[in-house]
């Protein structure tokens, strides 16, 4: 096991915890210790964990707003251009620019734009789909979606030192600390 890790570069050290509170405490301690490049893996959202690993707030609402505006303007033009400019046709004696009748579709496309930007914005910002990720190599990582809580300190962290970091992490009420290869 150890021999093989020497050959491939190290991604980081990963520690396994029994419950969200231990993980949260560990993340806070690691942050206090000066570690910045770390990540956690949990089967359910843990309140306060995002802040603990240094994530301030999501910019998703802004993305959604932009999507909604695109949908709104695009939706109105989609109707205005054909019915007023490209193929003006008197239908039912209504004016060419029948703006009251254009409101429903404009509304729908506003929402559609917002919804699509919300979904794909979420996926893109989260880097999904991720076909390969080093943490999946970690032993027992399949429990991260079930009932265990993992904290990973990455090798890229300037304060990362294999031995010292391992010692630090072992002292954090972790069940197990293991190495993760890239």
């Amino acid at each position, binding site marked *: 096991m150890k021999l093989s890790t020497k050959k491939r570069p190290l991604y980081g050290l990963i520690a396994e915890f029994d419950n969200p509170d231990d993980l949260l405490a560990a993340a806070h301690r690691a942050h206090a210790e000066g570690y910045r490049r770390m990540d956690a893996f949990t089967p359910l959202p843990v309140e306060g964990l995002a802040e603990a690993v240094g994530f301030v707030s999501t910019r998703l609402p802004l993305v959604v707003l932009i999507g909604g505006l695109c949908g709104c303007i695009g939706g109105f033009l989609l109707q205005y251009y054909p019915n007023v400019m490209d193929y003006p046709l008197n239908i039912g004696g209504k004016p060419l620019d029948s703006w009251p009748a254009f409101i429903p579709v404009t509304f729908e496309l506003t929402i559609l734009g917002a*919804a699509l930007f919300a979904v794909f914005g979420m996926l893109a910002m989260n880097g999904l789909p991720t076909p390969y990720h080093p943490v999946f190599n970690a032993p027992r990582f399949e429990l991260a979606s079930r009932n*265990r809580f993992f904290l990973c300190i990455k090798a890229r962290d300037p304060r990362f030192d294999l031995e010292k970091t391992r010692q630090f992490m072992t002292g954090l009420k972790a069940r197990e600390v293991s190495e993760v290869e890239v």
Partner: protein
Amino acid sequence: MEKSPNQITEDLLRPLLRTSPKYYFAVALLAAVVVVAFAAFGYQAYSGLGVSGLRRPVFWGFYITNFVFWIGISHAGTLISAILRLANATWRRPVTRCAEVITVFALSIGAMFPVIHLGRPWLAFWLIPYPSERQIWPNFRSPLVWDFFAINTYLIGSVAFLTLPILPDWALVRDKASGWRKRVYGFLSLGWRGTPRQWSRLESAMHIMAIVIIPVAVSVHTIVSWDFAMAPVPMWHSTIFGPYFVAGAIFSGIAALILAMACLRKFLHLEDYLKPLHFDNLGKLLLMMSLLWFYFVFAERLTTWYGNEPSEMAVFWTTQQGAYAPLFWTMVFCNFLLPFPILAIKRLRTITGTVIASTAVVAGMWLERFLIIVPSLSHKFLPYNWGTYRPTWVEITIMVGTFAGMALLYALFAKAVPIISIWELKLGLHEKSEVRSQETEGRGKLAFGGQEKLET
């Protein structure tokens, strides 16, 4: 009794990993009915719409009734789930996903009906606005085009609303299953890892979707109602139709949700998850909607009577005491007189009680759609133009086929996806234990895992 997180995982993944012969039998039976319905549609497409009962003056019959009915049923899911999410009702957790699934499937089925109803169904794509060799565009002043946009927006939004919170559950199946299942669910879960950033963005996206999907749901049925209300046909051209249809849709939607939950509870043995409490709460909602439905029917009929237009009064009286009166009073019985006492009396609001009330409501709401469409068309302005409508076997077969199709899709879905959101259930347990441990100073914490042996 409260379940532990591990038991939840075991119980809810069981249907995905093990299948009984009875399941195959049921699926085969439902699939057979669907195939027959497709054959009937093929026959109609080959011979023309003449094989249906649509004749002058009634050109909208069973197909459009079913269209409105299924779109109405689709308001069970996304809308109710979004409202419960935003209201942060804690009891919602086991209910939301089985509700959202109804939306996706009922909407797909409903959207098929206008196409079935077309004389040349292969030209349905003409609704899509794009610069084409035909050189003309859809008429954006027509509510039928609005329908196209509204229903597709709602469908896309609902699929997203359903799928987003499934990602973590698919990741769970990926990590638990083996063989081909591991590969498939590994692909579906897109490499979900459950980092705080991912959770934070997922929850943010869900919150935003819940907010935007509510106006869409309302707009969809409003626009469906405008298919009628924009036409100057007696008793159709009514300004209240939008909210009236929306209220009716939520009404029938809740009833459908109760029926679906009762089936899931029985067939998938989810007695510990879908509890009497959920039926009781949904029963209360159904009661509220029943009262609201009553208000709408009353307000609509009263104002029509007050308006006193001769052509409208002809339709008014034929439903009130004429040829359609038996159907009308059956509808009032099914939607109000029967469910009201069952749902209002706490002792009767049991699982059986709510199921009986819901069955009546689903039937009653189908009748309501029929009674909105057919009497008006058969009593348009000039009496020489009055007529009747009688469905043929083709229409009835296709209609039965859609009910079987709904059950089939639901059964297949429950096999591929945990029908109750596992992570949200665990989150609920976790939050509850947090509150409890605050009260008891640290005792009573939730034990995650621990003894579970590793399966590989």
